[in-house]
């Protein structure tokens, strides 16, 4: 196989990218439709143990159920005479003390599902536990509001369900340059150049060409717009820190993108939870603190809200392997400069009133949070995005 020949025969791309007119139209429409508010969504994948994160250190039930993994008062960062943060969260606590954090307790949904996959689906599609939706809630936002793939970016190499719409999908990229270079490969460029408008109107083939052209123009847009700005802020040197740094660069270089999504995995702590969670929370706390301070420094924090969730919490009672099993309702964090209810949004979960599996029951439906953010923060009509009526909360 002569690789050289293939490259040669695949030809030199002309510098001009063929973009059909109907796609160009989006750019002109954009500013009037959308504001400049940003929403950053972070999933702690695997089911973070909320009870050992926001610890009810005066609660006997907590200690009785968690003989070897309970966090002791002397190790915690105390908030009040009931609650303390896990010791790893010191930087996160600084943000909390500055009034940049709202903590919502007991967030979940009716008939909770304890499978990672199904529960992640539920959170990503904003469905009930009994229905299966084929689009993500951010995808539906792209369909009905942004109408452009660049409306939402996942800082990863694969696109999650959350950003998949009926007609429009978001873009996944961790490295705008790499994505851009992929779309610029001579052969690829040449293939797209060869297509004509009428080609694009054809059934599935048109859809494939449109998607490829969208990919190319989105990648070019993201790369061109972001290449001039590099964050000088110091982030922790790990994958998550790097991802948040990328989000900051995207936001601060003025991308029109409104919603960003990224995740930190490893929270499935069935065994030896103490050390694993300690490292994970510390990674989260340090990266998120760098991120907030970077945005503040650049003056973009006031227009940014950060939502952190996990697909479920852990069981109240620890298991025999010094870990915890899959649970239900959990704490959710919201961060921003102009929060309506900074601090603890509601009381810590009742450990006396658990469900039949011994899990925390929900008090706030997660779709209330989504609805509130869409409505109050992104100034969007939520009805096409979240089905069902969810009482808005006083968040932003």
């Amino acid at each position, binding site marked *: *196989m*002569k*690789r050289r*020949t*293939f490259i040669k*025969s*695949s*030809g030199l791309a002309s510098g001009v990218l063929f973009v059909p007119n109907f796609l160009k139209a989006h750019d002109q429409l954009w500013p009037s439709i959308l504001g400049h508010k940003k929403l950053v969504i972070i999933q702690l*994948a*695997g089911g973070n143990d909320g009870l050992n994160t926001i610890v009810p250190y005066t609660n006997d039930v907590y200690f009785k159920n968690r003989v070897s993994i309970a966090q002791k008062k002397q190790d915690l960062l105390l908030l009040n005479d009931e609650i303390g943060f896990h010791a790893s969260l010191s930087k996160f606590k600084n943000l909390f003390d500055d009034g940049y954090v709202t903590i919502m307790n007991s967030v979940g949904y009716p008939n909770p599902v304890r*499978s*990672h*996959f*199904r529960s992640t*689906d539920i959170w990503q599609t904003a469905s009930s536990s*009994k229905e*299966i939706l*084929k689009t993500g809630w951010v995808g539906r936002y792209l369909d009905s509001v942004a109408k452009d*793939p660049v409306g939402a970016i996942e800082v*990863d*190499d*694969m*696109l999650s369900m959350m950003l*998949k719409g009926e007609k429009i*999908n978001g*873009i*996944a990229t*961790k*490295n705008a340059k*790499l*994505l851009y270079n*992929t*779309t610029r*490969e001579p*052969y690829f460029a040449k*293939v797209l150049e*060869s297509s*004509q408008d009428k*080609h694009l109107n*054809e*059934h*599935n*083939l048109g*859809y*494939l*060409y449109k*998607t*490829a052209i*969208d*990919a190319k123009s989105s990648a070019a847009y993201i790369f061109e717009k972001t290449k001039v700005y590099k964050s000088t802020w110091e982030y922790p040197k*790990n994958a998550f820190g790097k991802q948040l740094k990328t989000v900051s660069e995207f936001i601060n270089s003025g991308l029109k993108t409104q919603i960003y999504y990224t*995740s930190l*995995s*490893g*929270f*499935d702590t069935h065994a030896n939870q103490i050390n*694993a969670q300690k*490292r*994970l929370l510390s990674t989260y706390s340090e990266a998120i603190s760098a991120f907030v301070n970077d945005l503040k420094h650049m003056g973009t924090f006031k227009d940014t809200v950060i939502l952190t969730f996990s697909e479920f919490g852990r069981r109240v009672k620890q298991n*025999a392997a010094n870990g915890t099993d899959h649970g239900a309702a959990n704490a959710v964090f919201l961060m921003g400069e102009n929060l309506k209810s900074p601090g603890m949004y509601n009381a810590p979960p009742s450990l006396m009133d658990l469900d039949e599996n011994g899990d925390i029951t929900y008090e706030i439906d997660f779709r209330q949070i989504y609805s509130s953010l869409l409505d109050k923060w992104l100034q969007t009509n939520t009805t096409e995005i979240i089905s069902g009526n969810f009482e808005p909360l006083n968040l932003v």
Partner: protein
Amino acid sequence: MELERIYHLYKRAGFGITYSEAKKQSSENKKQVINNLFNSSSQTSPLNVPIDEIKTLFKNNPGKLSKDNKMHLRKISRRKLLEFNRKWLYRMGETDEALRERMTLFWTNHFVVRERNIIYFQSFNNMLRQNALGNFREIVIAVAKEAAMLNYLNNQQNRKKKPNENFARELMELFTLGEGHYSEKDIQEAARAFTGWRHNFKGDFVFNKKIHDFGSKTFMGRTGNFNGEDILDIILEQSQCAYFISKKIYSYFVSEKIDKNHIEELASVFRKNYDIAEIMHYMFSAEWFYDKKIMGNKIKSPTDLLVGMMQIVPFKFKKTKELAYVQKLLGQQLLNPPNVAGWPGGRKWIDSNTMLVRLKLPSVLLNNGIISFDVKGEFEDSLSEFNKKKNVGKKLDVESDWNFFNAQFKKSSYAELNMIVLGANLHEDTEAFIDSFEKESKADYCIQLMSMPEYQLC
């Protein structure tokens, strides 16, 4: 039968066909070609990975497994499932029982399970293979009795005193009738009929009388001491059931664009005996199956893409994990469906990212190209592993058999190669574009064809 029709039939009913085989069949008529397809799938070859390690573990630990042993078992199972994935994919590319394997894949996305125990999974998969072209009633009952399904839809927890409705709900919503053709009450009553359907540790079906509800049930307007089989028989009496399955078969094998008349034709065939081979035979024989609007207008699933490529240039991943990565990047890891509804398919396979990967894939797999991937950590991954991954610009370790390709296509024309790789009815722009390719080597030429968006269709 014309070469292009043979290719169409085999891309949909199987996973493609080798050039020599297609040539051979092109002298036969349509009826003969379709009969060949069915005849070669009359046998069932089960697909198994060796599980001696697990057997030894059980033999050395009679009674109950300790916690460490259970963990060990999970670990072996994980590895074996990956092995099964690989073996299954290659089977689809190599088998003579093409239709049977295609139907097996179809049913796995209809009767969806996620199962981490290799023994249960393997048994489920082979049960589908065995019944893939049999009777629909039999396959549903067999599905209901498999450990993998009893676990996945919680019938293991379905007992008289505390019925669990999960299986009963999906039985009607996803497996037989579709939403809106039953009531909540029907679900509750059906759930009662399936109480006590369980499996033992080995994965064998057991009926536990003690927790079965023998009381009277009222289901879809009928009253009696129904058991699970009775419930299914009442469901099969609904004319909606044959329509629902026919629609699913039509949108998978023919087109996502629904043609009600064609589906009704299929349903009336299916309603008679619920014979799966019969409805498939009818469909592949129908003239509308070969309509120009149908041929080459289906978006390939990632599995179709990989296996279809293998038919033209056989290739093997040297590392099973890399195969799993590629499947993940494309959005379909066999054995890991997104949820109980399975992969939605069609246009849902395609987003900017998967499109880019798809266009790059032929040169990556067959021509030592480089692919950038950094796959999200599994839930089990530790943080340090997550941070350690540096896969950007990685070269995949793939062995491709170009000798096979060269031998096959030595005598074919370039026009034939276009038809085989991209299908018939190419758009004139595409024709003009591929006309500009250098024709020095068929191998290079083929990779370029495979890198066209048109190659995503079949």
